C-alpha cells in the first residue's frame, strides 16, 4: 500500500516539474534578453549586439537573433534603438508576440547575422551548466517589421494616428 502512495507522490512530482519544464521549452520567446543597440543603419535597420543562449553554437545564435528581434519589437535592449511597441501594445499583444516567434521561417525574414556565421572568441562563452552563450551582431529590418506589425494590427501607425 505504501508503495502505491510513493508511486502516486512520485508521479505527482514528475507531473508538476514536467509541466514546468515543458512550459519553458514550449515558449517561443528568446531565452536571453541581453541586447544592446550598436547603431541605426540608413533609418531602416537597427544593429544590435545580442547575446543568445543554447545547447550549442547554432541554438545560441538562433536565440541571439530572436533576442535582437524581440528588442526591436518589444523593447528592453540597452542603447538608443527603441522598441516598436508601446507599453499598452505590449500588454495587449503577449500572445501575438509568442505566436510570431513560433514560426522560424517567418521571423527570420526580419533579422540576419551581420557576421555571416563568423564567431568572435571573445563573444562565445561556455556557461557552468554546459550551455553556450554567444554574442551576435544582428541587423533587424525595423522598417519592414514595423509595416508588417501595423498590417497585422499589433501596433498602430503612429504617424497616421497622430495626424
Amino acid at each position, binding site marked *: 500500500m505504501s508503495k502505491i502512495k510513493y508511486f502516486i507522490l512520485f508521479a505527482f512530482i514528475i507531473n508538476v516539474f514536467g509541466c514546468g519544464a515543458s512550459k519553458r521549452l514550449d515558449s517561443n520567446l528568446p531565452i536571453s534578453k541581453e541586447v544592446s543597440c550598436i547603431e541605426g543603419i540608413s533609418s531602416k535597420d537597427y*544593429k544590435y549586439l545580442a547575446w543568445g543562449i543554447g545547447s550549442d553554437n547554432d541554438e545560441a545564435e538562433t536565440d541571439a537573433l530572436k533576442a535582437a528581434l524581440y528588442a526591436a519589437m518589444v523593447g528592453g535592449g540597452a542603447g538608443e534603438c527603441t522598441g516598436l511597441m508601446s507599453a499598452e501594445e505590449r500588454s495587449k499583444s503577449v500572445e501575438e508576440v509568442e505566436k510570431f516567434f513560433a514560426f522560424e521561417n517567418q521571423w527570420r525574414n526580419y533579422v540576419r547575422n*551581420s557576421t555571416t556565421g*563568423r564567431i568572435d*572568441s571573445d563573444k562565445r562563452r561556455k556557461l*557552468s551548466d554546459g550551455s553556450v552563450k554567444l554574442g551576435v551582431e544582428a541587423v533587424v529590418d525595423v522598417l519592414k517589421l514595423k509595416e508588417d506589425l501595423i498590417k497585422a494590427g499589433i501596433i498602430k501607425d503612429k504617424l497616421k494616428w497622430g495626424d
Partner: protein
Amino acid sequence: MKRIIPVLVVSVIMFTIFVEFVYSQNQLGSGTFNKKSISILPITSPSASSYHNQMKQAIVYMDKSAQFDYNYIREDYINSFQSLISKSNIKFSSPESSDNMVILSKLLKETGIIKEIIEIATNTDTLIKRYRNSLKTEQVTALSKQEISLSVEDWEKLVGGIYVGIPIYTGMNDKKEATGVLFWLKIVKPYDGYKFTEEKSSKDSNIIIKKLDPSNIILQKVLVKKLELTPGSDLSGFDTRGRMNIELEKSLTPQEAGARIITRSILSIAEQTEDFKQRGTIQDLEDGPRVDLGKKEGLKLDQGFKVFENTVDNNGKTKFVYKGFIRVDNVADNTNKIDAKSSFYTIIPGSFERGYSVVAHPQFMDISLKAGYKSVNIPKEMFSDLFTLGNIYKEDVTNTLAAELSASFNLAQLVHIHQLFFGASGSYGLPLTKSTSSYTFTPSIIDVEVFLLKKFWFQRFNFSLAAFGGTSIFSISGNSDVGEVKIKTDGLTYSVGGRASLEFAISPDLNLALDAGYKYVLSPTAFKLTIAGTDYTFDKVTNSTTWNSWKMNDLRLGGLNFGLRFTYSIPKL
C-alpha cells in the same frame, strides 16, 4: 618483460592525464589577434656609445614581423633620448630595479617621445587601414553609406596596443658575448580613462577617428630582460634577410655586431611574450579546424597553436580552459580576402567547437633523449693473444645498451613539407660483456649521426621514418699484466641506416616514442693500440694473419636497434 609493458603503458597514461590536468589549469588573457604598434628606441650605455649608429642601422635591416606595425621615430628624438639616458642614473646592472622604470617613463614623457609615438600609432590613416582590414561584417556596405563614429572599445581594438621597445647595449663581456638589457613598455589606459579629441579623416570624411590625448597616459612594464648574446648566432636561422646580411656582418667588429644582435633580439623575445602571440578563433571544423588567421598575421607552416575555450564559472568569472593542440596545415592568403581561413591539423584532440580561441605556442627545436638496445657482434677472440689470456670474453658480445641525445629542427618553413626534421645525434653504447679473466676490458661504441626525419601525424600519434648517416668509433680499454691498454678504431668508420618510430604526444611539447631501426656500419680496417703508453697500429692488409686469428672480419658495429625516446620541444632561447 611481460610485466614491464603493462606497467609502462599504465605509467604513460597516468603521466598523460597528469600533464593534461596541468595544461588545463593554464589560463589565457582575453583578446583577439591585432597587430601591435611598436616603436623601437635603441640605446647604448655610456661605455658603448660609439656603437649607437650600428643599433639604429640594425632596425632598418631587421626582418619585420607581421605581428607589428613599425613606427619609426625621428632620429633627433632618438639621439636626444640617448643623450639623456647617458646622463641619467639608470642602473644597467640591475635592470629590474623599479627606479629604472621611473627614469625611463619620465624621460620618455619629458623628451616628447611618447607624444610622437602616440601620434604615429593612432595616425588616422593607419587606423582607417586597420579598420577596413578588420571588417568582416556587413559594415563594409554601411560604411560607404553613412557616417560611422568609432567607440572607445573599437578604438582600443584597432590600436591593438602601443608598445615601446628599448634595447640597451652595454658592450662585450669576457665570453665575447654582447650584453645589454631589453625593456618592453606598454602604454595603458589611465585610471580616469582615455582623453580623446575627434578628427575627421582627410581621405574619408565619413569616418571619425578619436585621437588620444597623451597628457595622462601610463607606461607599464611588459618585460625586462638581461641579454647575453653571441654575435652572428641569430643569422644562422631561416631568416632570409638574415642570411643576406651574414656577409655584411662578417665585416663588422665584434662590438659592432654585438650592437646589432642586441637590437634584433627584440623580435625573438617578442615571440615568447604573451602580449605579442598570434591569436585567432576556430571558425569552421570541416576537414579539421579552420582559423581566421593567415598570411596577414604572419602564420607559418607547422606552427603550433594551443586551443582554449572561454568559460564562465558559477561566480561569473571567465576563464580560458586548455582544450588541445593544433598545427598549421595550409596558410591562407588573407591579405586581400579578409574571410580566408587557414587550415590546421590536430595533434592533441579535444572535441573542438567553433568559437574556440587559438594562441600561438612557439617551438624552436626538439631535444630527444633515448635509451635503447643495439645488436652488435664483438668476437670473443678479439686481441686474444696480446696478453696471454686466451679469449678476452667468455663468448661473442652481441648486446649493447646505449643512450642517445639528439637535437632536430623542423624544416617545414624552409622546404614547405610538413613535419620534416633535420637533426644530429650522438650516442654512447656499452656492450654487455663477460670477461674470462680477472682483467676487465670495457668496450664502448660512440656513434655520431645526422638524420632526416619525416613524421606522419594521426591525431595524438605519429609514425615517423628517418634516414641517417654518420660514423662509429669502437674502443676497448682496461688494465692488464702489461699495463694500461687502449684499443680504438683507426680512422672514421662510416654508417648508414633507417629507423621507424611510433610516437605519442603526451603534451604539445613532450612526446614519447618507440623506435626500431637497422644500421649498417662499414667494418673497421685498422686499429690503434696503446699499450703501456706505446702506440701500435694494426690493419687488415699489413697484419692479415693477426687480423684473421682475432676474427676481426666478424666484428659488426651495426645491426638492429630498439629504444624508448622522450622528445621535448624547446622555445627559442
